[in-house]
């Protein structure tokens, strides 16, 4: 069973001479404000107490019938308390009082890169991203060992979470599932990080990206694309754990003058294929306006470490695939590819 110190359900207050603060009063305000924020008579927080709370002759908070009164606060709020004598003389002020159950929320409205977002110490802290532009976060200073950091995006602008940013203190850095590119959040995306022990930073525990993110695929022939133009050039990607899932569509308006096999480049995240071509090939879901193809279109990944990384386009012939080159393409060739690969 968890242990905790016994709480003090009914406090008693004294003056500077040690006598009970008879007729004294306690005022509850919102933290840092002069706005009343009521105390309550019980845990359900259904009965707000009179403001200020008055003490009986023994210096205890009391009901109107003279019974000792429990004092309860809203665990989600921060308070300022003012202790005063019976004549209203202010004896002590304490500000920013919270309960151990509060989950502080930090709201981020700034844009730019790389950003550092300080967080308070608490078992669980929420950071909400509401910025009106893209943001790259390099670290969260201020956490404590074991602390959970719940990130929520409430904006359609991407928030990039940088992996082990070298310009950030080690204890503030992020360790992500994907290391070759940032992990992104777009509304309604969420992520959960946990702070490691002393000397460690934040480790990603769970991540749901939210909306798909765009990327820009490039159609090349043998790695070049002289004179090649597009009618449609669209890519979408979703990162799930260590897997990137998504699709691309490339529709030409001119195939240009470059020659060689069709190689699609510009991929988000490096893929891991230990060794070459073993994991989760891309799938050609649509192909139109090619010419002379000896079979249906298929594709395969380049080996891990090939730079730039790319997929090869093939025609399945029943025996050995034939490389789809410029000779099989037209000025209106149209291609849709779906993919799913483990990322570095």
């Amino acid at each position: 069973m968890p242990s905790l110190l016994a709480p003090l359900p009914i406090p008693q207050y004294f003056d500077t001479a040690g006598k009970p603060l008879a007729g004294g009063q306690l005022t509850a305000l919102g933290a840092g404000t002069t706005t009343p924020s009521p105390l309550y008579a019980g845990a359900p927080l259904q009965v707000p107490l009179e403001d200020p709370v008055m003490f009986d002759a023994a210096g205890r908070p009391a009901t109107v019938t003279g019974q000792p009164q429990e004092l309860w606060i809203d665990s989600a709020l921060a308070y300022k308390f003012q202790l005063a004598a019976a004549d209203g003389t202010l004896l002590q002020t304490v500000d920013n009082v919270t309960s151990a159950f509060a989950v502080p929320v930090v709201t981020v409205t700034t844009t730019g890169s790389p950003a550092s977002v300080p967080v308070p110490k608490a078992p669980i802290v929420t950071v909400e991203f509401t910025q009106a532009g893209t943001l790259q976060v390099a670290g969260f200073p201020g956490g404590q060992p074991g602390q959970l950091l719940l990130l929520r995006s409430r904006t359609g602008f991407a928030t990039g979470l940088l992996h082990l940013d070298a310009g950030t203190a080690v204890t503030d850095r992020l360790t992500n599932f994907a290391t070759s590119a940032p992990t992104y959040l777009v509304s309604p995306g969420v992520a959960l990080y946990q702070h490691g022990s002393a000397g460690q930073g934040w480790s990603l525990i769970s991540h749901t990206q939210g909306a798909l993110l765009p990327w820009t695929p490039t159609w090349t022939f043998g790695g070049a694309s002289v004179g090649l133009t597009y009618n449609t050039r669209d890519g979408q990607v979703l990162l799930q754990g260590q897997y990137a899932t998504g699709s691309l569509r490339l529709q030409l308006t001119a195939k240009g003058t470059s020659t060689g096999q069709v190689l699609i480049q510009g991929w988000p995240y490096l893929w891991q294929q230990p060794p070459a071509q073993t994991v989760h090939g891309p799938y050609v879901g649509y192909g139109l306006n090619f010419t002379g193809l000896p079979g249906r279109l298929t594709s395969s990944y380049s080996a891990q470490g090939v730079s730039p990384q790319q997929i090869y386009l093939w025609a399945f012939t029943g025996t050995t695939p034939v490389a789809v080159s410029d000779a099989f393409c037209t000025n209106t060739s149209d291609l849709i590819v779906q993919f799913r690969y483990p990322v570095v």
Partner: protein
Amino acid sequence: MPPGVLLPPAIQQFFDSNGKPLDGGSIAWYLAGTSTPSPAYADSGLVTPLANPVPLSNPGGRAPAMWLDGALAYKEVLLDGAGSTIWTADNLTSGQSVPTVTVAASGNVFNVAVPTAPVVGVQFTNTAASTSVTGFVGGQPGQLLVLRAVPTAQVLLYPNNSNSAPGDMLANFVGTIATPLYGGAAIYQRGAAGQGWNLISHEQGAPVAWTPTYTLGGATPVGMTYGTQLGHYVLRGRQVFLGLRLTLSAKGTSTGTLQLAGLPVNDVAPGSESGLIAHYAGGWVGLGTGGITGYVSGLVVQLVVWTSTGIVPMGDGNLTAGSDLIATVQTLAA
């Protein structure tokens, strides 16, 4: 409405043995169980440390607001005006910390002891080999357990395993294979008394290797050898995504229908929801231009080719000594 809590002791006043305010007294703060001073702070952001000991008001014996680091355990000592100790309270914590247990051992660890707290972290740091865990001992109903494997750590979380007591066992999304953490993370929650730990969230991390093979006529092919024989899979919920490459160096002498075997998990609905897509196929014969597909049946994939009338099972007649296949398989784990 969030839960209500009793008013914290934000305003504190101290008295001597005669009930008089402890004018001139002070409070000293140390790390729990030590004589190492560890200051209280004047602000909730823990920016400005107070003098240590903290002087009480004179007159009045009132303490200023004293903020402590929620991640630490403290020893508090009340001193009178002469510096003599009135009382000592040790091992004071705020309940605001998340204790973390580190597991560095590899092999069959089976049961990991965890402390009681609302949230506990378990960090796996093994590097030499995989660590097998079947349960977590300790904890309390409703407790959250956040598991993290450092990027090099491989952890296998076995469900409903008899190496743990029923009240400490793991209830995973998939009950037939271990849920892996290969640099990944997971969250479990302890059930009510007598129940074990229920998986809430899981990210596997890196893919796990498996070894694909061919069978002919339902048996291991005689004389068949592989140039490349690689497979990896990832578990997401109850879905299993597998990738493979099989390249033959000799097809051998066996005959019969051709199946892909060695799947690491049994399919929950054979043939109905799970299939194979070939992304690359070279060195095959008799396939036409329809290409290779397949459907999952238990622990094997029946390989088929498409013809103008439908699918036809593949067999030894489609193989050559250089048959090469890159494919993916998606199944729903039993």
